[in-house]
């Protein structure tokens, strides 16, 4: 090892240390692997398996393993094709809905926590009110009145209703950071509020923000599945919740067509469960106190 290498090392150490623990954290690796595998399937599946999920193409009620990998529905639709298309919607709803909720939650949380005063009072009031309203019930009402529903619109509504707890969490974190010396220093040197939030406060809680996003992602996926199952799913697409809705509607239970309702549930559980496990792993990576010895 040369002299220069050793001088460069300390500057890089923090990132290197995080990576060091990340690569050795089994929970993080297993979770990330499952999520990535599902993502690849969601992206590549519909391209490689070019069969319409809604068209009636085969013998109705075929068991898995024959012409169709996961069998067919009571109407002869290809279950595997429905599954991969549904998985795609799942990721779309999670990314869009969870992402939107994260952005709204962060903005509200940062502003409320950093500005304080009456801005905080008002934002806090709004957050508390929305926190108590059962948002899924609101979503049910909204969706019931929409004649045409798409995955995007669903994600939009989920995003705009699921941010309150994130806002509250971000606000609490911001409050503890806002009184630190380096923030005071930035404020004294005349840095604008928005810059302090994005340059000084947000980077210091980036791991926390990322984990909040993961939880919002999982929440959005589950919320969408619930809506779809009640029969308020996309009218022009396919989703895993819609598959279960159809299966129950056409008595797949009584007819024993288990391949119609088991795969969608596995898909959702695997993605959301892996995200949660990944979150624990990340928590251990970022928080030395939790690391297993």
């Amino acid at each position, binding site marked *: 090892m040369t002299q220069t290498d050793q001088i460069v090392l300390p500057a890089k150490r923090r990132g290197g240390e995080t990576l060091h623990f990340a690569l050795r954290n089994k929970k993080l690796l297993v979770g990330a692997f499952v999520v990535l595998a599902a993502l690849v399937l969601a992206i590549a599946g519909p391209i490689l398996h070019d069969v319409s999920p809604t068209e009636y193409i085969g013998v109705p009620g075929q068991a898995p393993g024959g012409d169709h990998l996961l069998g067919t529905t009571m109407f002869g639709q290809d279950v595997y094709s429905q599954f991969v298309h549904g998985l795609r919607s799942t990721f779309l709803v999670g990314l869009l809905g969870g992402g939107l909720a994260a952005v709204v939650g962060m903005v509200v949380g940062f502003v409320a926590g950093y500005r304080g005063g009456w801005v905080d009072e008002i934002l806090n009031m709004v957050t*508390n009110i929305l926190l108590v309203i059962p948002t899924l019930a609101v979503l049910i009402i909204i969706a019931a009145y929409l004649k045409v529903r798409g995955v995007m619109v669903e994600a939009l509504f989920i995003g705009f209703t699921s941010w309150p707890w994130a806002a509250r969490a971000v606000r609490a974190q911001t409050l503890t950071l806002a009184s630190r010396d380096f923030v005071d220093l930035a404020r004294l040197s005349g840095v604008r509020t928005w810059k302090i939030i994005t340059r000084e406060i947000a980077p210091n809680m980036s791991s926390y923000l990322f984990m909040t996003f993961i939880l919002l992602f999982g929440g959005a996926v*589950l919320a969408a599945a619930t809506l779809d199952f009640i029969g*308020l799913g996309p009218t022009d697409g396919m989703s895993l919740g819609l598959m279960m809705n159809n299966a129950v509607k056409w008595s797949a239970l009584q007819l024993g067509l288990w391949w119609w309702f088991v795969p969608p549930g596995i898909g959702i*559980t695997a993605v959301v469960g892996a995200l*949660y496990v990944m979150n624990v792993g990340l928590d251990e990576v970022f928080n030395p106190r939790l690391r297993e010895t």
Partner: protein
Amino acid sequence: MRQYFGRKALIYALTFFVAVTINWMIPRFMPGDPIQGLVARAQVADPASVDAMRAHYTNLFGLDVPWWQQYVNFWAALLRGDMGISIWAFPTPVTDLIIRAVPYTLGLLIPAILLSWWAGNRFGAFAARRKWLDNTVLPIGYLLTATPYMWLALLLAWTLAILAGIFPVSHAYSFAVQPSWSWEFLGSLAVHWVLPFSSLFLVMFGGWAIGMRNLIIYELESDYANYLQALGARSRLVRGYAFRNAVLPQITGLALQLGTIVAGALVTEIVFSYPGIGHLILQAINNQDFFLLQGAFLFIVLGVLVANFIIDVVYTLVDPRTRIRMQGNAV
């Protein structure tokens, strides 16, 4: 004390006000015309009767007066307990339908919430920092919380009811018995209750167990726990203190989770055709019965608000610090 609950009550009153307003606004400001849809559903071709139907529905919804008066009328009707007449079960008032469905939903929800919370907390606290248990509890717990409520319900219905035939698949009681206070009827009620209850219980149980496990680990890392251990206290004692501290966030967690839990109960009822609020909502959606849908929504909001208030009261009883802070200067 009074100031604290006064503030809470204000927030809940505001929340109810917002919820009612949302409920009033959605049908009126949604793109598309719900009356158009209702008329179209009747499939009448004659233009004269179409006009008559339009006028009838506009009058029925009270849409023929200025919007502020519609809003006032909406509140007035609501305070009288009048939520309109159901279209699906014409001509039963929505309030009656909801009152009939509520016992089933509460009979599922309350035992499932309380038992899963208690058992999950106990189990999570027990598993924390015990290598072998922890390594099995953690993945199972995460899988359970990640499971959509309706899917677990479907799995239970398929395996235990259809394949094994141990429990009935649907409804709250067998249609062979008449609802009465006989043992036969109560037995039928109990057998039909087991599966929907278990699926709700299991999903929630996973969440509480994980939450408690993580909180206990945090508590065991804290100074007071280390100090007790250094003094040579038995680990039972240390864990007991850690548990009491970790229960508090779990109570708040229960309040935050209520909305999701209620939604879970709704879809579970749908899977088992259990005649509670969820079943009503499904019928309302399938029959475009918006009065029923909005009545159910308001009822859910009201229920969640009441439950939140109860949790607030419990929290102040359990946590001495909130009580002391309230006696000093109220927050």
